[in-house]
């Protein structure tokens, strides 16, 4: 009984975020635009590197740099809305369980992040990888990394953005807290993406080793974030 009740509350909060997004399309467009702009910056960064070097060598790093900054933009946005419209306060007054709020916001952020990631990856390969060697390993492996790392990013990000939205200099504060905390996850995500992109003997094992690292980080960090959320959201 209680479980189905939480499930209904979860769906209601998630639906609210989705409906608002479908109406305004604000998050996905701003995050997508941000990713596009980052790629323009990458063109500048690689402008003098010449055509002879293999872009695949730096591609994992480049895409994760884009995704981490993009995710911060989205996370910040998602909570600025809640705060400006007094939504969080209303949620706190209503008899919704606090963990439900965490998981609903977490799911929403994860969903938006994944959508923009999946949209921007083809654009990245269209812009940078044409006429070059293809990926060494099956493409679904990249999907696995995207999902695994995005879980950690949105989980911890949901907690941190809830805090930083109440600080001076919200978005800068989020970056200061978020980037160092995410270091182990991002490092593993870049390693796994690299193994998936380059291919060759032994890379599949490397890939799963890095994915185990990602999974371990996800489990620990999301559990801690979930445990702390209750304290953070009440004040």
């Amino acid at each position, binding site marked *: 009984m209680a479980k189905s009740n939480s499930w209904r509350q979860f769906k209601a909060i998630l639906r609210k975020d989705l409906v608002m997004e479908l109406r305004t399309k604000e998050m996905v467009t701003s995050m997508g635009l941000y990713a596009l702009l980052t790629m323009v910056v990458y063109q500048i960064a690689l402008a003098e590197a010449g055509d002879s070097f293999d872009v695949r060598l730096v591609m994992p790093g480049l895409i994760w740099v884009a995704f981490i900054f993009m995710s911060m933009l989205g996370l910040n946005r998602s909570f600025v809305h809640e705060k400006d419209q007094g939504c969080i306060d209303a949620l706190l007054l209503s008899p919704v369980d606090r963990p439900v709020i965490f998981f609903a916001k977490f799911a929403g952020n994860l969903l938006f992040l994944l959508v923009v990631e999946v949209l921007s990856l083809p654009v990245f390969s269209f812009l940078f990888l044409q006429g070059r060697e293809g990926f060494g390993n099956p493409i679904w492996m990249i999907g696995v990394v995207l999902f695994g790392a995005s879980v950690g990013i949105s989980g911890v990000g949901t907690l941190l953005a809830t*805090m930083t939205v109440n*600080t001076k200099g919200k978005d800068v*504060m989020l970056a*200061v*807290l978020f980037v*160092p*905390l995410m*270091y182990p996850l991002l490092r593993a995500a870049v390693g796994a993406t690299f193994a998936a992109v380059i291919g060759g003997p032994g890379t599949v094992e490397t890939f799963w080793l890095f994915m185990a690292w990602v999974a371990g980080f996800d489990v*620990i960090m999301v559990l801690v974030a979930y445990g702390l959320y209750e304290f953070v959201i009440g004040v």
Partner: protein
Amino acid sequence: MKRNPLAEIMLGLGGLLTTAAFFMAFFWAPGTVYPDGRIDFAQKIFYFHVPVAEASFLVFIFTAYYGIKFLMTRKRIYDTKARIATEVTLFFVLLTMATGILWTRVEWGVWWLWEPRLTTYFILTLLVIAYFVLRNSVEDEEKRAVYASAFGILAFIDAPISFFITRWLNSIHPVVFAGGEGSGLETSMLITFIVAQVGMLMLGYAFYQLRLREEELTERLEALKIEIGD
């Protein structure tokens, strides 16, 4: 507000032990040589670099511990304690970084190398600094305490990663006490190291207590000023 005699005893004892370790390191512990027979003088940095680093990890535990305690009880004193523990951590972290960089310059020929231990420790430094940046950017006192506690707990997760990473990955950072063949130290070196380590931990405790006392005095002064102002 009584003085804390233990803190002052620890301060004196810690100062004595670290001074003793300093002389032991240079005049008693044998020098080490490189595999090609040249003398490795920079190894002497080890006797202070490692104790300071271990102290930074150990003091950081209290940031997380008092963070949890604060969230459970909401007593302000625990937040103050967590903050002071983080301050002492920052102090030790900076000393570790400074001595480490000098050692790296001698042994590896470069000031900095993106190597697993160095990288994760650098991240730890950033997290400790971020803790204070976060505190400074929250105005509401309760919010500040809750956020700082939560972030301190999250940030602490990097400490064991940084500590164990040289044992998990191929790292060129030396692991002295790895266990197994050829690890560990000669007795006189080990004793010197232990003296320095114990001394440094005592100093860490004393620093923490002294800062806590200063904080209590400040609070009492504020209270008195308000009382007089009325």
